[in-house]
């Protein structure tokens, strides 16, 4: 068995203290390997977003370990975690992933600017083509449809060639046909480019393409499929 790209072990997460404390996650265990498309499904308020922010190093767990390529995340400095987020993690949010004053190509250029390297023109063109966005390469986010925006967010997440892509309800703002389209493209990227992709959703109909499915309810995670 290949080593997990991202693994979370015995994660607890509590917000607040005493009798006002909210437990968002209880003893969550999770792993994803390269080339896997994993879904985390659960109702609203079940702890899905909390889980993703911990996986991304945006929050520290109350207990437990986050291992990225075998390295413990909590042991790193804030600066290292920022670099880790930039280099190793691609994030796709529900909406408003994109910077309103940059056109589609410039969203990608920004990634290169931050990484202090020249614009990867061919890579950008190829990814935009893969996600059927070549025609809108110079459009601003406000000129795109919801589906196009989420596809741009996928391109943007993939562009930096991260180990893991974390998508938090990427289809929440889309209708069903577009949601299915976006999910199929995510599955495709995982399988074709050997990416580890984790998608959070509350929509049962979208998990057909997933290799592994975790169910989460009231902060308790159980592996369901795969």
């Amino acid at each position, binding site marked *: 068995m290949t080593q997990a790209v991202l693994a979370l072990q015995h994660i607890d997460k509590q917000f607040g203290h005493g009798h006002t404390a909210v437990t968002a996650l209880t003893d969550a265990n999770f792993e994803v390997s390269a080339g896997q498309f994993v879904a985390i499904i659960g109702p609203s308020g079940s702890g899905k977003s909390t889980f*993703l*922010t911990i996986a991304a190093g945006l929050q520290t767990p109350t207990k437990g370990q986050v291992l990225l390529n075998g390295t413990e995340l909590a042991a790193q400095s804030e*600066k290292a975690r*920022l670099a880790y987020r930039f280099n190793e*993690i691609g*994030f796709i*949010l529900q909406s408003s992933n994109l910077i309103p004053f*940059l056109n589609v190509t410039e969203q990608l250029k920004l990634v290169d600017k*931050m990484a202090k390297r020249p614009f990867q023109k061919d890579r950008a063109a190829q990814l935009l083509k893969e996600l059927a966005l070549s025609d809108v390469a110079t459009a601003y986010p406000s000129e795109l449809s919801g589906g196009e925006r989420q596809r741009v967010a996928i391109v*943007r997440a993939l562009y930096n060639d991260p180990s893991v892509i974390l998508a938090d309800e990427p289809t929440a703002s889309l209708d069903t046909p577009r949601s299915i389209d976006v999910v199929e493209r995510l599955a495709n990227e995982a399988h074709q480019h050997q990416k580890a992709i984790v998608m959070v959703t509350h929509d049962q109909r979208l998990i057909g393409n997933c290799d592994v499915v975790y169910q989460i309810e009231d902060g308790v995670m159980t592996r369901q499929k795969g």
Partner: protein
Amino acid sequence: MYLGLKEMRHEKLRYTLLSGVLLLIALVVFMLAGLANGLSNGNRQAVDAWQARTVYLNKNANQTMSASQLKLADQKKLSGKQIAPLASLSGTLRTTNNHLKTTASAFGTSRTSFLMPKLVSGHQINGKNQVLISADLKAAGYKLGQKVRIGTTKQTVKIVGTYGKSTYMIAPTLYTDIATMNRLKGAPITSGDQQTVNGFVTKESSFKNAKHGDLEKLSIATFINKLPGYSAEQLTLNTMIYFLFVIALAIIGIFMFVLTLQKQPLFGVLKVQGIGTGHILAALLTQSIAMAVIGIVLGLGITVGLAQIMPAGLPFVVNWAQFGGYSLALLAASVVGALLSWRTVAKIDPAVAIG
């Protein structure tokens, strides 16, 4: 850089307006500075032309030349090079037919003294009752060979030479010798070393010995600061300029802060993507520096343009070194203003962007 400039290009109206506000502030700073320089110049231009280091006045004169009375013989109490007696008279210059009237500052000094200005036309004073006039007076219509009166006496003097621009206490200057000056003042003694003068102006000098009677030694800088109204004027105008720096800082600070509050969700998304506080602050700094540079450059351009078309009577002097310094101060105010949002940017929690 990239983020900041791209946003400015996309939000042209917003950033043009703020650049416009900075432009207005810069314009007022430069105009006030130009006027302050003009007033300062109007007060001291003649003094600067002397290129002297020290002035001796009567110690009871409260360091003011017009109130100081000394005798020509007092020069014996001083030793050193280039010591010039100086008598001054502020009065109305007028032609004998009264067609021209101008408030002027008249100076009397010895005919060969270093205070005598370099002539542009005519000849140096070589006889009784001759005066030299500045270019400002020439421009006002006074001519070589003309007979004029100064002050309240009937004494007439003849214009024999003209020199460059020169003003003292906001009035154009003219020069004559000590004896003529005393005749113009109606003084009882108009020859010899018992004549009155107001002071001595020197390049390098000291008191001959500890006993120097009523004489007091002033540096040129003190002498200028003691010109009536001079320091009050300069202080007023300079205070206004310094306040404008604070206002520029506050405007940039408030504007950037409001924008930062507005853009918190966007900054949260950037942080999720691993673009940290440093990069976001760099974008804010880029924007405020860009706006300040646009405002300052245009403000300078407009100021210099206005200076060309200003009426001659308005004292206005462009001092590039000073304007450069004020530009840097405005730039610094903008940078500090942008940095005021630092805490807010740093506190934005990327986890909130996910929700």
